[in-house]
């Protein structure tokens, strides 16, 4: 009696169903295949590895295991054939103790596994002759004509919900923050912290599943603040707070460098030309030239001016970073003209150091790799 796969939680799909007549045809064919071959047996299995019929059941072998393995082996062979541009491979295993296993595809629905226990050299040729003859064609016909049962288990479906972009951005940023902190401060991820994170994630998954975007947003923000508190880190409420601090320091350094070599009048001209040029690209951020003066760039003024129009810090932050980086790039270009390549490289180095200092603060907002991304694109020959 062939073993029946199944039990709770497993599906009972089979590849095909044989009628009584077809079953007898298959049994006759399997007998015919190993007729006259000493100590040999033949098994028909479906391509999922389930035994359909056996002729001369071999003694002392775990047939269900062999069937599952043969099916797995053949399925990988089928994929291999496809990867190598072949139609199909037949398989032969040679054993050290004169045993041989022969696997042959039947009508693209089943596998014939023949176990041969003999060292006779022409055994495989003889077998192939039978498979290509009447016995083989009877077997193929019976399998080909067998009916396909209805499927009981549908294939898995992927159906991601349409999470609002800002929320998606925020959940990614939270993941990045957790992973970064895990790398840098592994000792602070105590069991309590991990348990807290697990509960927060669970609440987030539930909120997202119920499409409660507001709650999900609050959970992201709450988890971020809770985690930063656990790690004794600064808890900026708004991305603007962080960006203002970062760029204020960078522009402060650059302005100081320029002031050492250029008069205030010249600096005023430089900043005005930057404004004219960049405000066309970033009209929402560079709203007034009063924020650019020989005293430097008024980052807070720029942020507040732009924020007044949108009231959406997260949305504004991406454009703000691009605008500020464009300004950094222009300032670096001037530093290059005044102080040469060495001066420019030193300025990039200093600005990068400032960025590193603020890395963990930018991370929760997903901006850790966005700020300063294009600085190095400046052509040194300009």
């Amino acid at each position, binding site marked *: 009696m062939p073993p029946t796969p199944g039990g709770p939680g497993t*599906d009972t799909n089979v590849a095909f169903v044989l009628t009584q007549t077809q079953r007898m045809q298959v049994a006759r064919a399997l007998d015919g295949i190993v007729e006259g071959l000493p100590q040999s047996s033949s098994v028909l299995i479906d391509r999922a590895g389930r035994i359909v019929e056996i002729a001369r059941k071999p003694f002392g072998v775990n047939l269900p295991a*062999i069937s599952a393995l043969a099916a797995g082996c053949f399925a990988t062979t089928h994929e291999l054939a496809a990867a190598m541009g072949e139609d199909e491979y037949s398989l032969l295993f040679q054993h050290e103790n004169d045993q041989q296993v022969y696997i042959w595809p039947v009508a693209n629905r089943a596998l014939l596994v023949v176990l041969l226990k003999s060292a006779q050299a022409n055994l495989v040729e003889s077998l192939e002759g039978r498979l290509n003859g009447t016995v083989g064609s009877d077997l193929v016909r019976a399998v080909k004509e067998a009916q396909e049962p209805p499927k009981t288990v549908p294939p898995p479906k992927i159906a991601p919900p349409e999470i609002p972009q800002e929320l998606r951005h925020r959940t990614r940023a939270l993941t990045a923050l957790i992973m970064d902190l895990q790398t840098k401060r592994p000792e602070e991820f105590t069991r309590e912290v991990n348990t807290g994170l697990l509960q927060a994630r669970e609440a987030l998954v539930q909120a997202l599943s119920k499409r409660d975007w507001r709650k999900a947003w609050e959970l992201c923000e709450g988890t971020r603040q809770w985690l930063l508190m656990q790690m004794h880190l600064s808890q900026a409420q708004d991305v603007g707070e962080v960006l203002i601090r970062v760029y204020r320091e960078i522009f402060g350094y650059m302005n100081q460098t320029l002031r050492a070599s250029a008069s205030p009048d010249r600096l005023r001209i430089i900043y005005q030309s930057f404004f004219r040029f960049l405000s066309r690209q970033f009209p929402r951020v560079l709203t007034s030239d009063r924020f650019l003066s020989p005293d430097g760039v008024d980052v807070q003024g720029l942020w507040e001016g732009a924020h007044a129009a949108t009231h959406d810090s997260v949305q504004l932050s991406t454009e703000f970073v691009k605008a500020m980086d464009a300004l950094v790039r222009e300032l670096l270009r001037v530093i290059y003209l005044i102080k040469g390549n060495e001066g420019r490289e030193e300025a990039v180095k200093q600005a990068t150091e400032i960025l590193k200092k603020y890395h963990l603060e930018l991370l929760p907002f997903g901006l850790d790799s966005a700020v300063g991304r294009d600085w190095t694109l400046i052509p040194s020959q300009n």
Partner: protein
Amino acid sequence: MAILHEATKEVICKVVYHGTGMCGKTTSLMYLNHHLPPSQRGKFISLETPTERTLYFDFLPVITEARGYKFRYLCFTTPGQDYYEASRKLVLKGVDGLVYVIDSQRERMHENMTALSLLEKNLNEMGQRPDLLPTVIQYNKRDLPSAIPLDEAEKKFNSKHLLSFPAVARTGQGVYETFLTIAKMALTKLTSADGESRMGDLFKTTVIAQEDATRFRTQLAKLNEEGGLTGSMLVDESSGLLSSQGEIPAKDFETLGALLACNFTAAQELAYNMSGQGFTGIVQKSAKRTLMATRVDKRRFLVCLHDGRADPRRLKDAVLYARGTISAALLQVDQMSPSRLARFGELFTSVSRLAVAGMGAV
């Protein structure tokens, strides 16, 4: 068992999703396949079966780069159905990171528990201590009404206080975070000399230096010439291709390596199940080509390709000779790998975050 190619600056790690039948392992990989940008993933392979369930494994290579190194995470799923127990443990061979997927539905608790104990049994049988393997838990199907409370699930399945993630694989929630965490842990494991030295033999990292790569290519070229082969490959049974030479009729070497490795291990297990002994070789024949595989040592095997016209006696002699020389070279690689690996400790510590952060956000 990770493989580190010094010459090509490639690191290959094997990540396995394990769990009871229909718990969401395949769905998790399918989600990654759908949402990672094409540059960061290879071909998703789900072996063709008539029943829509995992027959042997599903496979998805995930690729990322950091500091000039290319990191390839070969992600496999194990077959969940009890019927496939024999092939399940083959997929676990040489695993570097394990995601244990739990079906959160109350009525599936018994199966989850059985799958967990089978996992430990399978790892022990392969000489690997489960507590040394980087492992995370993915509590799947958290959106279903019959899902058990999370603290109850933790008590049942997480006595070792592993990192765990609630997830809904169907919608992708928690899937990417789980993967990023195990990818990072698998990489970090490489830096832990103590952890590495306590790994079972099948789970130790192989570091292939420039001179080894050259030596393997030379040895394979000699085999091709003397055996009348069109091409040959040296394959590791856990993580795929180590070296190749000649004409290999496939573009995606990563997938080819994984398929060959799984094909070979299944054939080997089949041979053991039948006779309690190994085998001299597998021969696969098609109209155009013959592919022959033979074991070199306990973890690697040689694959020879020819057009069916190779002289059997000449081929046999060439393979016998190549097995000897390649086996000796591999022995040297295994002996040198721990000290070579130590050189990468600092690098992997610094890139472990970058290597995963470089992946597209899902």
